[in-house]
Every structure is written in structure tokens, then in C-alpha cells.
């Protein structure tokens, strides 16, 4: 649907991927207040809303848990003196893919919506910000961008995703037809549907939607890469391992404990799948404030990763108990994440470790010397095979943010319909939610109209006097 809403839109203005800095653009009435909400200016007490247009402000973006996300520059453009003619904010942030996505997601949570192709320009046009002679060019632009967009969705349409969603839509359509039938033909005193069955059906449907939504993170994995965090005590060889993986000397390797104080990121592609590796500070009790920050970051990274690589030094026998404990804790805290346990320094080890105990805690245990390229590669092969197989197994994967959003909204309505049925509200109210749910699914596969509902009714039921 063509949007003439006064909602606030957001998009990355620079290309996706790693660069020195990237720019995120926000346009709409609430741009300034939304950003104000997540921005801590360096100069205390500064309010963005009180700043004049075309000014730049340094500060930090923070997440809901007050975690600092990034140091950014905020440029303010006030209506009507902006590109779109609306209130606009441009955030210049650091150019890692990870940061970009984090900020976008934060902004969406705070009430913005991902812009559609050409939407900034379109708004600019609506607000008479663009010269009339440019009109034709924009029309062509919208057309071509839609074609690209269409091309992408065509790909999806051919795929399983669309089939699956079409099936969901069809089931919903049948469902809403039943409701509508009872409403529009209740004159005939006919009862078609059994409420209990309807409730069960909605529950099942909700679960299917949930599955699809959850597949987004895996889908994201293909598109955006899988996060792998390397953790372990200080000086067990995390950085050596990391450098072997990405084959460049990025981490400072030394035998001093705590040399890696910050998170270091590296990317590799295995079997067509992108992996982001994070080397973290060693987990040890320390009073050094910088290291404390590093350890905090390591914990945060663990939360955000799909795979945790736990490395320990197999040459140090004394630590056996602590290692088993560490592994237990990680398993307990992150039961859904994949845990790889790596016994490093096998070249030095006297093989006295009780590996059986550790083995029982994890599916993946490797004995290696991180210095040995071949042994590291073995781990990488296992890792990539794991995800490759998983992708192959999963029938449907949501990769598009747009689809993800639509599915989430659709699920919300399905759950509301479920509640309404449970509360024994009238079918016409239940139907409002189902129609909304259908509308959101329709954003993925194409709209379902009232006419479709009626057609479905007439093809299935004998009605009318």
C-alpha cells in the first residue's frame, strides 16, 4: 500500500557492510524525540529538541539496558529544512555491520519503521522539496526500485517461504470465511464452526508463525553471518586461535595475561556461510578497570552469539575442576547456543586431563594445538558443516526484515484473535483480528480482498434462502 502516513521511517543511508563510518537516516514527525530517547550527549543536559536545525552533536546511543552501543554524531535537520521536508536525524556511527544492525533494530523498537524503496525521496516529493522537473526521474526510480524489489520477492515467491505463507493465508482465509459465514448468514440459523476447534486451530497457527519468526535468526545467519565468540581464561591461546582462523595478526598475542582487553572482530566465509569471530578478554578476576570493561564485553558478546568456543589450556592439569564448572555454567546460561570446547596446547599437554567428564558436557570437543593450522581447520570444518546441515534441514527461513516484521504483526493479531475467542467475544470482533493478520501476511504474498473471502464462502457452503 502506498504510504502517506506520518509515521517515522528509518534506513541505512550508506551501503551495508563494513566501512569506516555509516549513516543512518530517520525521517518523520517523531524523529527527534525518538532519537532523544536513546541518546546521551557528551555535554550533559543537552536536549536535541532544543537544538537548531543543521547542527551536529556528539554523544552515545544506549540500549534499553543502558548499555552503550556506539559513540555517534547526530545531525539535526528540522522541518521544513530537510531533504524530506520532515524532521530528520542523521546518525553517523561506526561502520561495522554489527553496529549498523543494532542501531536499526533499536530504532525500530523505539517506534520507527523500515523505509520502503524510494520512500525518503517520495516524501521529499510530497513535501514539495524536489523540483518539478525531477518528477519523471523519480517516477522511473520508484518503478525501477520496485522492479528490483519485485525481483527479490519473485525469488521468494518461487521458494518455499511463499508457499508456506500462502498456506497459512489459505488456512486463515478458511477460518475467517467460517466466521463471516456465520455472521452474514446467521439468518439461516446455521452453525458451522466449533469454537473449540477454532481455538485449537488458532493455537496451531500461532505456533507455525512463531516458528517462522524464529527462523529469522537463522535466516539472518545466512544473510548477515553467524556470530562465534571465543571465550576462556586468560592466556589459554584464544588470540592464537583467532588469528589462525582469520589468518592475520590482529590480536596482540603475548604470554602476558589479559593482553586482549577489548573485543576483536574477524570475518571468514566457510561453505558459503559468513562467520563473525570475536576474540574476547580472558575471564579472570581482575581489578584493572579496562580489563573489567573487556570482560563485560565478552559476556555481552556471548549473549549475542550463536556459537561459543570455549578454549582451555590442556597442559594445566590443576584446572580440571574449574573447566568442567565453566562449561556447566555456559551450558546452563545459554542452553540453546552451540558450545565448542577446545583443549588447546595439545603439543604441551601430558594428556592427564579427565576428558570424559568434559565430553559428557558437550557435543564438540577438540584437542588441538592452536598453532597448528590443520587442526584449527578441522574445527572450522565441523562448524561450517553444522550450520550447512542445519540450513538444509530447515524448510523455511525468513531472511527479509520486511517479512519478519509482517510475520510478527500477523502473529500479534492471531494471538489477539485467540484471546477474543477464549473470552467468547463475538465472531465479528475475532474477525477483525484475523483480517488484520491476513493483511499483514498479504504484505508478503499479495493482498487478500473481501471478495476472496466471499468467493471462498460460496465455493464451500450452501447458503442463502
Amino acid at each position, binding site marked *: 500500500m*502506498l504510504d502517506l502516513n506520518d509515521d517515522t521511517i528509518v534506513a541505512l543511508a550508506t551501503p551495508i557492510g563494513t566501512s569506516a563510518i555509516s549513516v543512518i537516516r530517520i525521517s518523520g514527525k517523531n524523529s527527534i524525540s525518538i532519537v532523544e530517547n536513546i541518546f546521551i550527549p557528551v555535554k550533559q543536559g543537552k536536549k536535541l529538541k532544543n537544538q537548531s536545525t543543521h547542527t551536529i552533536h556528539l554523544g552515545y546511543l544506549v540500549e534499553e539496558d543502558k548499555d552503550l552501543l556506539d559513540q555517534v554524531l547526530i545531525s539535526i535537520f528540522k522541518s521544513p529544512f530537510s531533504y524530506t521536508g520532515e524532521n530528520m536525524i542523521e546518525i553517523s556511527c561506526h561502520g561495522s555491520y554489527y553496529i549498523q544492525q543494532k542501531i536499526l533494530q533499536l530504532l525500530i523498537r523505539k517506534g520507527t519503521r523500515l523505509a520502503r524503496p524510494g520512500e525518503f525521496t517520495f516524501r521529499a516529493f510530497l513535501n514539495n522539496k524536489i523540483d518539478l522537473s525531477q518528477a519523471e526521474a523519480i517516477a522511473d526510480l520508484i518503478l525501477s526500485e520496485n522492479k528490483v524489489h519485485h525481483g527479490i520477492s519473485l525469488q521468494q515467491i518461487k521458494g518455499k517461504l511463499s508457499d508456506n505463507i500462502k498456506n497459512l493465508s489459505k488456512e486463515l482465509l478458511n477460518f475467517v470465511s467460517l466466521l463471516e459465514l456465520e455472521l452474514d448468514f446467521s439468518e439461516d440459523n446455521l452453525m458451522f464452526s466449533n469454537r473449540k476447534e477454532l481455538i485449537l486451530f488458532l493455537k496451531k497457527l500461532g505456533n507455525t508463525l512463531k516458528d517462522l519468526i524464529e527462523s529469522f535468526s537463522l535466516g539472518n545467519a545466512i544473510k548477515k553471518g553467524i556470530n562465534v565468540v571465543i571465550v576462556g581464561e586468560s592466556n589459554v591461546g584464544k588470540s592464537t586461535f583467532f588469528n589462525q582462523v582469520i589468518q592475520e595478526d590482529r590480536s596482540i598475542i603475548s604470554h602476558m595475561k589479559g593482553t586482549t582487553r577489548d573485543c576483536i572482530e574477524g570475518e571468514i566465509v566457510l561453505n558459503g556461510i559468513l562467520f563473525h569471530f570475536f576474540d574476547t578478554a580472558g575471564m579472570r578476576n581482575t581489578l584493572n578497570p579496562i580489563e573489567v570493561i573487556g570482560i563485560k564485553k565478552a559476556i555481552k558478546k556471548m549473549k549475542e552469539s550463536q556459537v561459543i568456543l570455549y578454549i582451555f589450556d590442556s597442559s594445566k592439569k590443576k584446572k580440571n575442576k574449574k573447566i568442567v564448572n565453566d562449561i556447566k555454567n555456559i551450558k546452563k546460561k545459554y542452553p540453546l547456543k552451540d558450545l565448542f570446547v577446545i583443549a588447546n596446547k595439545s603439543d604441551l599437554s601430558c594428556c592427564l586431563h579427565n576428558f570424559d567428564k568434559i565430553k559428557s558436557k558437550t557435543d564438540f570437543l577438540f584437542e588441538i594445538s592452536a598453532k597448528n593450522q590443520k587442526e584449527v581447520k578441522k574445527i572450522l570444518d565441523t562448524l561450517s558443516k553444522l550450520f550447512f546441515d542445519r540450513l538444509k534441514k530447515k524448510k523455511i527461513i525468513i531472511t527479509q526484515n520486511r517479512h519478519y516484521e509482517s510475520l510478527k504483526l500477523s502473529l500479534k493479531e492471531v494471538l489477539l484473535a485467540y484471546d477474543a475467542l477464549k473470552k467468547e467475544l463475538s465472531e465479528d470482533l475475532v474477525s477483525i483480528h484475523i483480517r488484520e493478520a491476513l493483511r499483514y501476511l498479504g504484505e508478503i504474498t499479495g493482498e487478500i480482498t473481501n471478495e476472496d473471502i466471499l468467493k471462498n464462502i*460460496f465455493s464451500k457452503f450452501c447458503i442463502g*434462502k
Partner: protein
Amino acid sequence: MFLNIYDIIVVGGGHSGMEASLASSNMGSRTLLITTNLQTIGQMSCNPAVGGIAKGQIVREIDALGGYSGFVSDYSTIQFRMLNKSKGPAMWSPRAQCDRKLFSYYWRFLLEKNIRLDLYQDTVTSLIIEKNRIKGVKTFLGLEIKGKSVILTNGTFLNGKIHIGGKKINGGRIAEQEVRGITEQLTKNFGIKSGRMKTGTSPRVDGRSLNYKKMKPQYGDEHPRKFSFFHKTKKLTKQKKCYITYTNQEVHNLIHNNLDISPIFSGSIQGISPRYCPSIEEKVYKFPDREQHPIFVEPEGWNTVEVYINGFSTSFSEKIQYQSLKKISGFEKVKILRPGYAIEYDYFPPDQLKPNLESKFIENLFFAGQINGTTGYEEAAAQGLLAGINAHLKIFEKDPFILKRNQAYIGVLIDDLITKGTKEPYRMFTSRAEYRMLLRQDNADIRLTPMGYNIGLISEENMNILNNKKLKVKKCISLFKNESLKPEVINPVLEKNKSPIIYSNKKIKSILSRSEIDIKDIISIPFLEKEIKKNNFNQEILEQVSINIKYKGYIDKEKENAKKLLKLENLKIPNNFDYKKIKSLSLEAREKLDYYRPISLAQASRISGISPSDLSIILIYMRR
């Protein structure tokens, strides 16, 4: 005898023609209603009932705008029911069984009372059209009557053909002559498309021959309501009963064995029939698994033995009608008074009309009712009303009166017709409306009466009645919002209704918004009772308040959605907009838009095959 020139000539005296005539003459146009038989004005050709689901809402809307269908129905009601009372308020639908004779009697009375309206009995056989502009009509008797505007409401009469078994009878209704000439002239000389549709009606039988003991009676409401907001009619103190019975396997077998000689299956009927109102033979054929179909026995009036057999529309020969009816429980000794029949007729696909129901090809020629491919008295009357209003506005060079989809079912009806056309007889359903929660029967006056007032169909006095109602509703809502109930006062009520009790004072509003609490449960609380009495909040007010509070979430949600659409609705596309020049539009879009000529971006968005990017492109060119 005739005026030198009429402002408006209405062709046809059915539900559509009558509403059109009264609307235009009430607005000040000198109007002529011309029909083949003045005796059959206001005839209910099918079953003797008005309203029903979605249709009842339309009747209320007609009334709120200043039409008369509701008033006449109220006057002739023999049984009233509010359907769907157990569902949400959007579904409550008034329906009245009417006395067929009183219904047409009172319509005729209203038409005669109007001093700006002339009636004349003759058949219009062709139109006088000069330079694609209507100038008047020519009649069967050879008269030429001049008019600035003509409204065609020919119903099923254009080349009507009746089927009863193998018998084919030319006619527009049983025992009434069909009309020839108009379709031929419009299609051949002006390239207007026409099509064929089919509809059917049920046999009417002698009520004395039925055994009602074998059927289930259906009573009217204990507290019957009225359609009209403003016209007062006598309270309905006694009501007639309807009855329900069912067909059975024996009936189905007999029908099944004779399917090949039913005109519908033998191929002699070509017109497209409605899926939702199938004949009994179609029901048996399409749904062989169903063991029974319901049959509704509806009395035709206060003082007649004739009853209408609803659910048994058929085109079989009278012999098979009789044989199969006899096998229905309670019908063993049935005597048919009038056999049912099927009728085929010409219609003009309504996508050839502008939103004001005027032809796209001939200026000041309007179409309304069944001629546009609709079915139902209510749908016809609604179009007649709007055609009458718009014909008047057009000749007085005023802006057309167009209802939006979020304003009225009538808006949905006309928008559907002109943007999608229709291939089968179009009937209104609540599911056709996107904003069902807003288009309720109870608020039709709030939605539409101010508009009726602005175009001059609603009197100052009735407008005051509405304003008074609105004021009271507002007052009552603020009372409920501000006043609290003490636990000791309300808890007994809550317990009785299995609602969680409260421990501190709660606003009335929050108690009422619980789904298990009805407004009736709380108005007997002494303090409230006093307030209600003092402010004279009657049942209508309390119901309005209750709906507004209980369904606020849903109402707000639909209002929000409608608001989004409204922005597109307000972006008007100039009539002379040249789509063909815009190369960025797909060829299909260019052709469709050029054909439909939507008045707004919203309307364009509803044309099948028009994509959001097409809309963006149009918008950009509109700004040029």
C-alpha cells in the same frame, strides 16, 4: 399535461425509482416518474421482507439520509426481529416481515403527496440523446417527454424472460410485460455494454393448506424496534409468526431426478445467477451431501392466507414444484397459489458508471437498482436515493454526493459496483465492508444525517433531534467516565455475573467495559438510576453509550485504519488526467486507469491490477 421540460425523469416505479423520485423532488427538482403500470408501484417482487444482515443497516442509512424505505417498512411491518443480537453491535441487523399490500399502498401515498412529482403510466421505449447528452424519453404511446436528466431504474424488465419448467414467457415480472428498445439503443448506438443475469423467486402457497404443527414457529422480538430514526409510526403490539421446516432426502431425490428438465440445467437459462441465493435445484445439485435445507414460511400480510416459501426458489414446472413441495414436512396437503419462477434480464455492467451513478458515456443519464446488476430491495433503494440526489446536484451544477467506504454501506455498495463491476447479482454482506465496526445500524444517523441535512433532505427539526441525541450521549459518557462505583454497591452485581469483584472504587466506565457486564446490570443501581432519570437518558442513548465504551478498542482501531485510507481518498485525480502519457505506468495500469477514471487515489488503489508503485507514480504526476 406534461411540463415543457422536467428536471428529472425517473423510469420505473420500484424501490429504486421511488427513492430517486422522492429524493430529487424533495431537493427541489421537478420530477416525473414514469412506469408501465401505476398499479404495481412499490411491488415486492420477491419475499415480503425488508432488511436483514447488512441490508437492515442499509435501510437505516437510507432513513438517516432522508429516504423513505425505512418509514414505509415500519408502517407495514407484521413482524420485527433484530438479527444477530448475540453478536457484536456491528452485526445487529434489523429485519421486518411486511404486509405486501400495505407496503406498496404507503409508497404510492408518499409519492402522491409530493407536489413537485408527477406520475404517469406508459412505457419508455427509447431515450432522446443528443451529442451524448440526455434530452428526454420516448414512450410506447408515442410521446416525447423532455427532461434535463433521466434515471433508469428498469429492474428486471429489460428484455425480461420468465422460465417455469419448459415454458418461456416474455415479461419483467410474472404477468407483466417486459420492456424492449432501451438495451438495443444503448448498446448499438452508444457502445454501452450489457449482460444477462438470472434470478428466481419461490412459490407462494395457501397458508391454510399447511400443517404448522410440524414446523417450528419463529416469533418477532419481544420489544420490536423501528427502522426509522425520525418518522414515528404506531408501536407494533401484535406480530405475525413465521415458521421453519426442512427439506429431506425424498425431496432431494425427486429434484435430482428431474434436474435435466430444469431450465437452469437444460441450458435454456444463460444469465448468471447469484451464488448466495441459489435455487433449490442448484442447492441439491451443488451440495449432494446435505441431508436437508431450511425452508422459511413467511406470511404475506395481516389479512391474507398467502404465504411465501423462502428457500425454495425454483424454475421447475409447476407440476414438479407441487410434487416436491408436498414431500416437505408440513406441506403434505399444500395448495400452490402462485408457482415460483426464474427470470432472465438485461443489466449494464456498473463499471460504466461514474461514482455519482451517471453514465460515463451519456451525460445526465443515471442508472440505479437491479439494472446495475444488484439484487435486493435495499440495494436498489439505496442506489435510487443516491441517483436521485446526484441527478439533482448535477443539473444544478453542484458537487456530486459520494459516500465513502468508511461512511456507509451505501458507500461500499456503489464503490464496489463502479470500481469492480459485477458478474453476478450483487448483494451486500457485512464482510464486504472494511470498517464494519463503524458502519453500525445504531449510528447511521450520527454518520449520515448531517450529510442529509446539508443536501436538503433532512429537516431542521430532525437535525435538532440528532444533535440532542449526540449531546446526551456525550453527557452520559462523561458521567460514566467520571463517576465511581463503590465495591459494596457493585460487587453483588459483579458476583451475579461471575465477574471478579473489586476492592476499591472503580469508574463506571471500567466496570461497563467488562465483556460479562451488560449496561442493564448497572442502570438499576440507585445513584445511576437517579442520574439517568434526571437527564432523561433513554434506551437509545444508553445503548449508544454502552457500545462506545465496550467496543472502544475495536472502534478506534478501525477509525485509525480508515484515517489512513482517507488520506488517499482526499487525493483527488483530475477528471482529464492523461494516463496514456505516463510511460512509467505499466500498459495494463494505463489502460485500466483510463477506463475506470478513478476520482481519487484510494479508488484507484481498489482497481484490480493497480500496484502501490502505480499509485506513487500517479501521485507524482498529479503534483505536476
